[in-house]
């Protein structure tokens, strides 16, 4: 497979992953993807020899994203739209709002937790595969995923007490 064929075939999937890893910052995702592809381009023979170029490149992507945002000046978590606080999740519009809320909550997570959740729930990797990608133990993956989900649950899971038969989200 040529590098060009690879980019043509795989870049949409990689870009979407990059977008999630970058907290929906399109410019950052584009730059991250370029960076990663450039590295892959440089090591293309090695990437091909791995037998699964996309997996190899996704590994570079996940680690580059981790490194990048770990090094970056710590940004405050993005505030969630107060209009969404107390929102009832009942109809289609609310489902959309719920997803939007979750995505923004995801963007506010520490990079490693975000990366683990993206690899787990967007790329459908197993915990073992994620550990392999990130070069850490399965235990670390589990704990990062658990912490990330707990954080999301804190801000995004409906209160247990129904409000007029519907569920209410906590304020962030």
């Amino acid at each position, binding site marked *: 497979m040529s*590098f*060009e064929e690879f*980019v*043509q075939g795989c*870049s*949409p999937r*990689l*870009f*979407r992953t990059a*977008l*999630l890893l970058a907290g*929906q910052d*399109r*410019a*950052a995702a*584009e*730059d991250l*993807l*370029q*960076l990663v*592809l*450039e*590295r892959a*381009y*440089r*090591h293309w023979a090695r990437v091909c020899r791995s037998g699964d170029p996309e997996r190899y490149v996704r590994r570079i992507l996940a680690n*580059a994203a981790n*490194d*990048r*945002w770990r*090094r*970056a*000046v710590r940004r405050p978590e993005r505030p969630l739209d107060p209009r969404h606080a107390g929102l009832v*999740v009942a109809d289609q519009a609310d489902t*959309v709002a*719920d*997803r*939007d809320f*979750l*995505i923004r909550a*995801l963007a506010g997570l520490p990079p490693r937790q975000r990366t683990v*959740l*993206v690899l787990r*729930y*967007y790329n459908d990797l197993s915990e073992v595969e994620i550990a392999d990608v990130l070069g850490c133990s399965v235990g670390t993956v589990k704990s990062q995923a658990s912490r990330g*989900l707990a954080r*999301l*649950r804190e801000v*995004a*899971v*409906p209160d247990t007490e129904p409000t007029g038969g519907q*569920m209410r989200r906590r304020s962030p």
Partner: protein
Amino acid sequence: MADLEGRLRAAMESAVASEQPPGNLIELVRRRRRRHVMRVSAAGAASVAVVALLIPAGIRVLGHPGPGPAGGQWPAASTVYAEFDAKLTGTVVPISAATNRPGKPIRVGGSLAVTPDGKTLYVSPGAWTIPISTATNKPGKRIHVAGYLTLAPNGRFAYAAGPFGGTVTPVNLATNQPGKPIRVCPIIGMIAFTPDGKTAYVSCPSIGPSTVIPVNTATSTPGKPIHVGPDGREIAITPDGKTAYVLGVHTITPISTATNTPGKPIRLGANPTALIAISPDGKTAYVGTIGTVVPISTATNTPGKPIRIGTGVPAEQIVFTPDGKTAYVANGEGPTGRVVPISTATNTPGKPILIGVGTVIAITPDGKTVYAAAQNKVVPISTATNRPGPPIRLRYGLPGGIVTTP
């Protein structure tokens, strides 16, 4: 209602389902590869832009070298440092310029920069920088600044910046201690110092109109953004320090450093690659395109006749002999990686010197030898004859950069 994991999965899929990467992604990647241009800051060396550098995205052009040493005697390079991508972490190989024999490899890779006195080589993998004494070739203590070092022309300090983080960090090269970061812009392209080192120009590339921010290096104060064309990234400053040229994806914007105002954008017939370099006499800016190098008169800012370097061959790098009579243009893309000598008096190309995959070049301070690194080798080229010497065989993969020391 679905559980949190299910909702998160659905949210992620829905959030990015219709997103597409930029249509010109391959070109952007190639351009990025080419634009990792660094400069050898060897004292008095009139070699100019050098070296594709690929590991993380940090980009910089160092200030233009000052005039040559009194008496016009240029020192010969004592050591050539070539960086290769071996084992992902990279390897720097020192090569004696006297014997063309490689020394013991240094297991670190990244962007290279040499102090003007040639005493220290800085290698920046991206998350930190490692100083290496060129006397012993032993790595020193890590400098914990992210990004890459751009050395000031006087070699006393450097600015470190990666593409993200929004800041540049001054580093005192006497102590290797970083100072307080200076906030400039969200995404940083390159840094270039004026020859007097008083101002650093920092490019802030964007898909739309970009800006360049002048930073007063004495006070670490950023100035008002200067607007340039789309994706303005590479910066080259004339030796007199009067004009900074910013290369964008379509245009070149000259900036008067006296007023920090942009001039009329210069358009070429073709889109430029990521190469811009100023000749040692400051009269010509050379801009790379696919297949040509276009000379631009810095007096009139008008492009001249393109100099052909080969069909479909992107000009990636250019170095000048100290006397400015010859420019060597390198292209490292594809198996026909080559070096093309150009007579700057007539702007005519000489016969291409075929090197190999990933060709990057550096010239010795005395201007007698161009060292071209390619996959698993370094080739010395005599500038007197433009003939390659016997290749120095190495087994470290593709080169990322090459520099020479006095």
